[in-house]
């Protein structure tokens, strides 16, 4: 973005300004600032003042003399002032730019409304919205106003959210931090930043009011602040009030506020402010020396009052944003024991005053324990440390609890039975039992047993699902003969194996080990191939299962024998 400079009126030109290690010239013009590389004819940097959010300068302690311009979109440009005549000249150049910018920026700042900023942010935060904006507004389907109208609630929501953010408190030392600099000719220079001004406004609402009243039409911004500091220092020792001063009203208002503050006694049951005096018992050998002190320390007293007032205002500035409910409550509480007017003429309370107060408002005494307890609880109990006692449990409310414990109904409906039937049945049983002599040799008749065996044999009524076929019909003849061969071979090997136990001699021990390896070889070379070939016939019965079981039993025996032998040796 490079435009010719000729069309605008140039307010200030500063040479020897470096940007990104390139020497150039900085121009301040009517509506924008620009920077161009030496020996070029167009701006390589150009920023509208309305785009600039703030400017920052490097501290004097730093070697480089720099000025940073922060944009609204968060980016920043840094300019380095390198006047060959020396650092001081560089500083002077920088200050010239700074002061001119200081005057120019506020003029353009108002142009960017907070609303626009917000919309911009909203678009940046939400890519979908941005896409929508591009599609609709940029392409000219609807106007921007229509677009935002439909999202008014979103905008207002965001405004609310920001409002509810925690506000930063005011530093108590903000006035002292301003640190005026002497300019050498009996004057002082104040550097006021936007933060300091905001702090002053928040702490002293009266000043804000005055500022609003006077600044645009009666005096300039700097004049106002010059007067403010003059008067501020003037009425530090607030003995004489000049009616010409713009801030005389403020002083009066301050006085009134001090009085209000004094009358609003601190109603803390755990603190007895009335007992506190400025004197100690050593002064005047126990006699009252208040009179003398008051007269001599008048100016100091005013100072202390001013300081206290300042602290009060700082604290109030923080409180002002909070909900007013708790304040109302304390106000109401303090109202009941309002004994202020009697002490309003002096900052030092006398003990006698306090005494009369407590006696006159004796009804407060009854409230005290409760108030104390409330205060202590307030200090001790933390909301976020409390256990979540009341979790929302849904209670199961059962109408018929016994219904849950019942099982399904019997499949066969129970036979109807009168109580007479039951009793007679029971009686007959007990009668039979009473003359019962067990005859165990005659329990089961042979025919019944045979019948049952028929039911339980394969193909019987209870053995449904099992096949009636005989095994020798199911398995092919060659497989049968193969299986028979396997069995004979394995039985022979196993017979040798088992005959070695107990392995009492060296020879037998060797034979056992040999037989074990032979068995293993048999399993690998014969049994496993046989098993594979059986798989092709798809038999439902595991024909080699028993052979494998025989082998595993032999292996287990061998393992235990070997383990025992090893244990014996070691």
């Amino acid at each position: 973005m490079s435009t010719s400079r000729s069309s605008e009126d140039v307010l200030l030109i500063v040479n020897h300004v470096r940007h990104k290690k390139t020497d150039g010239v900085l121009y301040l013009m009517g509506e924008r600032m620009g920077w161009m590389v030496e020996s070029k004819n167009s701006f390589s940097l150009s920023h509208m003042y309305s785009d600039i959010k703030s400017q920052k300068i490097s501290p004097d302690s730093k070697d480089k003399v720099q000025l940073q311009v922060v944009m609204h979109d968060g980016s920043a440009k840094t300019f380095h002032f390198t006047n060959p005549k020396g650092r001081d000249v560089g500083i002077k150049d920088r200050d010239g730019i700074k002061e001119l910018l200081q005057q120019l920026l506020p003029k353009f700042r108002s142009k960017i409304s907070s609303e626009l900023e917000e919309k911009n942010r909203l678009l940046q935060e939400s890519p979908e919205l941005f896409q929508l904006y591009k599609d609709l507004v940029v392409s000219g389907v609807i106007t921007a106003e229509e677009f935002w109208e439909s999202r008014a609630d979103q905008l207002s929501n965001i405004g609310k959210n920001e409002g509810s953010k925690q506000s930063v408190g005011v530093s108590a030392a903000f006035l002292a931090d301003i640190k005026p600099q002497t300019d050498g000719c009996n004057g002082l220079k104040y550097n006021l930043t936007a933060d300091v001004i905001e702090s002053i406004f928040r702490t002293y609402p009266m000043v804000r009011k005055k500022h609003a009243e006077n600044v645009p039409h009666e005096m300039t911004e700097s004049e106002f602040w010059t007067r403010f500091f003059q008067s501020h220092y003037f009425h530090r020792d607030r003995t004489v009030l000049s009616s010409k001063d713009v801030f005389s009203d403020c002083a009066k208002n301050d006085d009134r506020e001090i009085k209000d503050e004094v009358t609003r006694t601190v109603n803390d049951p755990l603190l007895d402010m009335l007992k506190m005096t400025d004197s100690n018992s050593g002064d005047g050998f126990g006699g009252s020396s208040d009179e003398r002190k008051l007269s001599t320390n008048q100016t100091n007293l005013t100072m202390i009052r001013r300081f206290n007032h300042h602290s009060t205002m700082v604290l109030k500035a923080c409180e002002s944003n909070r909900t007013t409910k708790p304040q109302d409550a304390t106000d109401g509480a303090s109202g009941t024991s309002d004994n202020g007017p009697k002490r309003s003429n002096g900052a030092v309370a006398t003990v006698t005053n306090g005494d009369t107060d407590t006696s006159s408002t004796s009804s407060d005494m009854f409230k005290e324990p409760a108030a104390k307890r409330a205060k202590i609880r307030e200090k001790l109990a933390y909301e976020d440390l409390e256990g979540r006692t009341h979790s929302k449990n849904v209670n199961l409310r059962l109408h018929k609890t016994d219904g849950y414990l019942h099982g399904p109904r019997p499949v066969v409906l129970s036979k109807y039975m009168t109580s007479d039937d039951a009793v007679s049945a029971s009686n007959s049983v007990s009668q039979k039992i009473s003359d019962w002599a067990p005859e165990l040799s005659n329990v089961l008749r042979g025919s019944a047993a045979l019948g049952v065996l028929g039911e339980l044999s394969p193909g019987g009524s209870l053995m449904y699902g099992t096949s009636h076929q005989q095994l020798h019909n199911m398995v092919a003849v060659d497989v049968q003969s193969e299986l028979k061969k396997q069995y004979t071979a394995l039985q022979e090997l196993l017979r040798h194996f088992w005959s070695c136990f107990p392995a009492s001699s060296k020879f037998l021990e060797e034979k056992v080990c040999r037989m074990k390896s032979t068995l293993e070889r048999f399993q690998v070379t014969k049994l496993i191939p046989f098993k594979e070939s059986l798989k092709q016939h798809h038999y439902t019965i595991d024909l080699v299962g028993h052979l494998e079981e025989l082998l595993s039993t032999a292996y287990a025996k061998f393992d235990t024998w070997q383990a025992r032998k090893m244990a014996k040796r070691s």
Partner: protein
Amino acid sequence: MTESSVSSQLIIIVDTNPVWWGQADTGESGQNQMSLAQCLECLMVFSNSHLMMSHRNKLAVIAAHTDKSIFLYPKKDQGGTSAINISEEADQGDGKYELFGLVNNQIKNQARELVINGGSSLLYPDTVLAGALAMALCYIHRSEKEVGPGEQLSSRVLIIKGSEDNPEQYMNLMNAVFTAQKQNIVVDACVLDNDSGLLQQACDITGGIYLKIPQVSGLLQYLLWIFLPDPTERHKLTLPPKAQVDYRAACFCHRNLIDIGYQSSIPSFVA
């Protein structure tokens, strides 16, 4: 061959409901020609067979009555008097194995006492099975703690039942069954008359055998054939195949079995 140190403990729960036995005895349904005494005789033979399988085998018999369950064997107060009992029985049983005599006599006496004196004023046609099963589980738990070092006890439960299911005991029985499953205790059921949905589920859950016997008179043969072998040996035998078990839940309000239930997030609520 070293002898295995695993002993098998069998807990028999026998249904002694006098109402059902009385009805069965009168022979209204025609096929149940068996009295409680005959059933108990079968039971005695069966328990003797179980004890005969190995001298390590252990036995307990629990009677499930209409309103209570008691141990038929071993007797509660057996503690110090067992030695005397055995010698007494030995006197009577001429040359019989003392343990058999003791078991048979105790079962006989206890059952007689239960049926004659134990009958309360109220008679129900159904049996309290859950309590008996819970007693069996407790007994197993205790005896498993009492075994000596190096010994192992594998326990199972056999339920011989004739009367109807008691739907009120559904929850209790199922809880006991799940406990058994957790303790690796097999629950077998031999049902004499009414098919029992609850016991079907119980056996299926614990891996036992459920059998409704077609001929009550052949009870002993069924017991010896099917229920005598230990669960560890059963897979080597050709036994009746397991039937499909109906696990359908009952509707909460009408107690009818339903095909589709809606489970709420609160457990065991089906509507």
